């Protein structure tokens, strides 16, 4: 899909807002387009080390500008460690903690079974011991630990975050407390407050469950009127409510372990809800489909169809074509699912009156005059105006539709535009796959025909409609330099 220039600029702004969503597209595996290494530099906030390593690789592979090349899997690196000192600081405490792990004091963390998590608590304890009452260098330590949360697998543990709050200087005379609204106006020690705020944002992002202890500690540390306490209070207020809206809660660590097919399943459940949905997995005929997928992609077709959709398809008029539209994207937290929709055009509401033919001109007159059917000479029932009664058990109330206090008086409105027409027809099924070719999707239709016989009679049209998100740049939008005149081309816009 081609976008006009102005529209692209808007899109860029849009991406800036969707920063956490765009990350998964980038990930560790990166599509390098056109300018290869240059884009790659912008794509990830890498350290100098990785940058050098990349340069080496790119020179080895000898990139052509026109072709698309997929970079190899990189080793997991903490991208946020900007300085080597930080890494070494962390390594120092980790090594110390590892050495100290079997000691008697471990009894405090008896209930923590994961060795990584245990290591984390031990490490923070060690730092607290070394830093003493003044907690010198606490901000640096907290920042480094915050970025390394995933390494210790404590992202969704609230006690890990409350432990970090202990690293702030404790006591009455820290100057951090904002107990009165008037004190909130002063900007001293603002760095600590902002850091606390960041910490609580991290809790929300990682989906840890906030508790009362968090609130108590923040009020003790920062006082009632600090931004940190506000943030803690607000997530405490909203968390339960937001969770109750979520029908299928899942922790961060569970989410990480999902296979691509499971992600597709959860995505489909969100797109096409219904407890009776029939989930099926159809294979793709590899002899016909020439497309080659990377490892870790969905190479079969996962389809969902509810019984209602099945009955709708059974009623489908075979003269009207069925469309398969896609690929579309569905974001499931940080992962994306690519799906196709099988649907048709909306039906015309009014039937063709022109095709009705009146065989007898005197038929109407007969029924009017004799009140009987002209052919069988049977009496017509007054209520239905038909020969046979409608077989409805319940008595009906004979009142006009307008005769209720709820109904409004209908007024004639001259219609200027045909804006009330239905644009979309009924959806018959939805499927997830990473293939893009119609040849692969034929497997879907073959599989669906087994349960939907009507589909064999219908003509199916593949209508490729890429969503604009698929045409989007693969770069991290925060890194784009807007003042660069060629930034759109660099970013991968066509």
């Amino acid at each position: 899909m081609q976008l006009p220039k102005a529209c692209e600029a808007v899109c860029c702004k849009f991406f800036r807002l969707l920063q956490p969503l765009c990350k998964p597209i980038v990930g560790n595996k990166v599509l390098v387009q056109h300018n290869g290494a240059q884009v790659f530099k912008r794509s990830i906030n890498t350290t100098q080390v990785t940058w050098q390593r990349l340069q080496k690789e790119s020179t080895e592979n000898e990139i052509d500008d026109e072709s698309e090349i997929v970079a190899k899997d990189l080793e997991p690196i903490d991208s946020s460690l900007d300085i080597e000192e930080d890494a070494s600081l962390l390594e120092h405490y980790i090594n110390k903690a590892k050495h100290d792990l079997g000691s008697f004091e471990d009894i405090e963390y008896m209930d923590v079974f994961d060795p990584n998590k245990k290591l984390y608590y031990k490490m923070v304890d060690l730092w607290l011991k070394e830093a003493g009452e003044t907690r010198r260098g606490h901000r640096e330590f907290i920042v480094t630990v915050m970025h390394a949360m995933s390494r210790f697998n404590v992202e969704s543990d609230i006690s890990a975050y409350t432990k970090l709050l202990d690293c702030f200087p404790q006591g009455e005379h820290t100057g951090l407390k904002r107990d009165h609204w008037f004190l909130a106006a002063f900007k001293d020690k603002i760095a600590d407050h902002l850091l606390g705020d960041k910490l609580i944002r991290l809790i929300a992002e990682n989906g840890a469950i906030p508790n009362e202890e968090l609130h108590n500690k923040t009020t003790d540390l920062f006082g009632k009127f600090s931004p940190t306490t506000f943030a803690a209070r607000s997530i405490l207020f909203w968390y339960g409510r937001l969770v109750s809206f979520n029908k299928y809660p899942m922790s961060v660590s569970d989410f990480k372990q999902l296979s691509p097919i499971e992600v597709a399943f959860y995505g489909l459940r969100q797109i096409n809800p219904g407890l009776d949905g029939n989930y099926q997995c159809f294979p793709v005929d590899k002899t016909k489909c020439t497309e080659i997928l990377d490892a870790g992609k969905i190479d079969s077709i996962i389809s969902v169809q509810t019984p209602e959709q099945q009955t709708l398809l059974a009623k489908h008029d075979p003269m009207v074509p069925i469309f398969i539209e896609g690929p579309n994207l569905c974001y499931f937290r940080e992962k994306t699912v690519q799906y196709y929709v099988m649907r048709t055009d909306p039906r015309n509401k009014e039937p063709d009156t022109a095709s009705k033919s009146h065989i007898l001109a005197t038929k109407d007159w007969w029924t009017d005059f004799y009140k009987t059917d002209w052919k069988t000479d049977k009496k017509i029932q007054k209520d239905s105006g038909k020969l046979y009664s409608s077989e409805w058990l319940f008595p009906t109330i004979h009142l006009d539709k307008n005769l209720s206090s709820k109904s409004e008086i209908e007024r004639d409105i001259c219609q200027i535009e045909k804006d009330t027409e239905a644009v979309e027809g009924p959806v018959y099924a939805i499927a997830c796959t990473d293939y893009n070719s119609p040849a692969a999707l034929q497997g879907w239709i073959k599989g669906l025909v087994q349960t939907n016989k009507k589909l064999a009679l219908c003509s199916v049209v593949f209508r490729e409609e890429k969503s604009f998100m698929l045409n989007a740049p693969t770069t991290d939008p925060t890194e784009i330099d807007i003042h660069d005149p060629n930034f759109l081309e660099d970013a991968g816009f066509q």
Partner: protein
Amino acid sequence: MTTSISTCRLLARRLRNGNPRFKGICVRKHDYHPFTSIAVRTIATTKPRNESFARQHATGKIDMSWVFPYPTVGSEEGLNELNDYCKEVKQYLLDNVNSKILDHTGIISDEIMQGLKDLGLFALKVPKTFGGKGLSNLEYYRLLETLSLDSSIVEVIHAHQVPGLQGLMQFGNGDQQHKYLRQLASGKLIATVALEEKASGSDIAAISCKAHLSEDGKHWILNGEKEWVVNGGRANLFTVFAKTEVVDLNDQVVEKTTAFLVEKSFGGVSTDDAANTCGLKAANICTVKFEDTPVPVQNVLGEVGFGFEIAVSFINSKRLSMGPMMAGQLHRAINDVTEITSQRERFGMKVSDCELAQEKIFNMTLDTYMLESMVYMTAGQMDKVDQDGNPEDCSIEAAIVKVFSSKIGWSSFAEYFQLVGLDSCDGGFPYQRLLQDFQVSSILKGSDEVLKMYIGLGCLQHAAKVMEDRIRAAKAGGFREKWTAMWDVSRIQIRILQNKATVIPHPSFGLKGESQTKTWLDKRLNNMGRMIESLTDSYAKRVFEVLREHGKGLENEQVIVGRLAEVAINLYGLTCVLARCNKSQILALRNADHEMLLAFAITKRLYKETHMILDLIGPLKIHGHADAQKKAGREVATERRYLPSHPLEVAHRHEEHPKYLEQKNKILELTN
């Protein structure tokens, strides 16, 4: 002429609004509105159909022709004959039928069947010209009450009678009557109805059994499977309902139901073994299959494509049969339980002397009394015939009896078992059997909720017809128009504003206004009559309010319609009780004073209950929980599970909360 039509209309409207400036000018009605007078005249000449009691009740009218006199058997000789016959039947059942053995074997033995035939129980409703007993509805249901000693036998006999009279006498032609009725009366042929299917429960129109004409046009070929056929193994003559293709107007081919009389000897009829039901074990309930069964064209009951009405009439008689059966069983239960409790001593006194035990017995008695009076009132009305020879339409009252009997069935049996104590849990017979039989037969006779909708909508249909003018007036345009329109309607409808000389008095118990019927009611019952009248008034008011608010959309407001149906049931029951009690007071029957006590208690109790129900559907939403009920019910239905979290589940530990601790400390200080 410069004065246009619009100015004429304006003139007329001003006149109608009662403007004093135009007082002197007299305009006749048909001058400005000629067609109404003609229409009114034609309506006046055609006599409106007599509506049934419950339908009239919704508009605030109490039909005195139903209430007085309470129906009885025509002559004293007839009554004596009936009583003797009932005694004979009862004696036979007590001597020969052992229900325990019947249940164990699951079959009514040939000897018993022969005995029942000899007693003439298969010829009850068949007219005397065809060798039957020719009983009226009233007598027939009295006999069913006697037969309810064994519920399986009642079901078998009732299933035989329904097509015997309802089908053949009402819808069959002469040839069919001559062919079958004598055989049915003698018991050579045993008949039953095959209506229900797997796909269709109470929804009769959804049957999938199908029939098509053979090529020579002499036979209908029948295909399909019927479930829950009572006495299906032994029956020779089935009344089967199947869908046939018919040509409607405009040459449209549609599927409509048709009733067929199918003999077992036609071929292609096969029955399975009896289903292992929890109750009615000897009733031989089984599935019947029809595979290419050829049915002669002469055996179509009624006309092709008009089977739905026949099915509905069958179902009506089925519904009413639930009443006398329950009444008979409850009679026996009360007699039984009083004997048991009088023999048992607890805490140094007889159980029957305890007031709480007596309360339970009293509740059972009340329900039974009310049910009896409803059953025989309805049965007596079914015997009535109007001027054209059509029987009166009692379908709504029959449904009322069914819903009420299944409602009190559960409550009365529960009290019965409580009083009997642990003995009722010991073994299946006879206590558990009562409950199981009741369960099967009540579900077999139609779902209560469907019937409630049927009752409610039936009453509202008539009410909408009567109140249409008032509703239209309330909906009229501006304030002034609305006011005048309502004034016009009220002048016609409200009694106070009418000229007394020209108007026939509004039928009532004669306590509020003028009435010719006031001498009917015993003086001691005046209070109860007044209570029923006031209830009727508020019921009609609520019906009008609901109709004005929802209009035709009321068909989809199931909660409101169901509640109105409950009110209709209560009011019908109350009126029946009053009529019966009045009869026994005037004639000074045995234990009339005891009846009086019962009637008084029922009226007092239902008066409160009914007002509470009426409050729930009222315009004040404070009283009701309708919205919450709708929303929560929908949520559970869509989620398909129990939604609330477990009581032991705790998301936040509130004990750590400082405010909570503060409060706790305060409380501790205060207490110390």
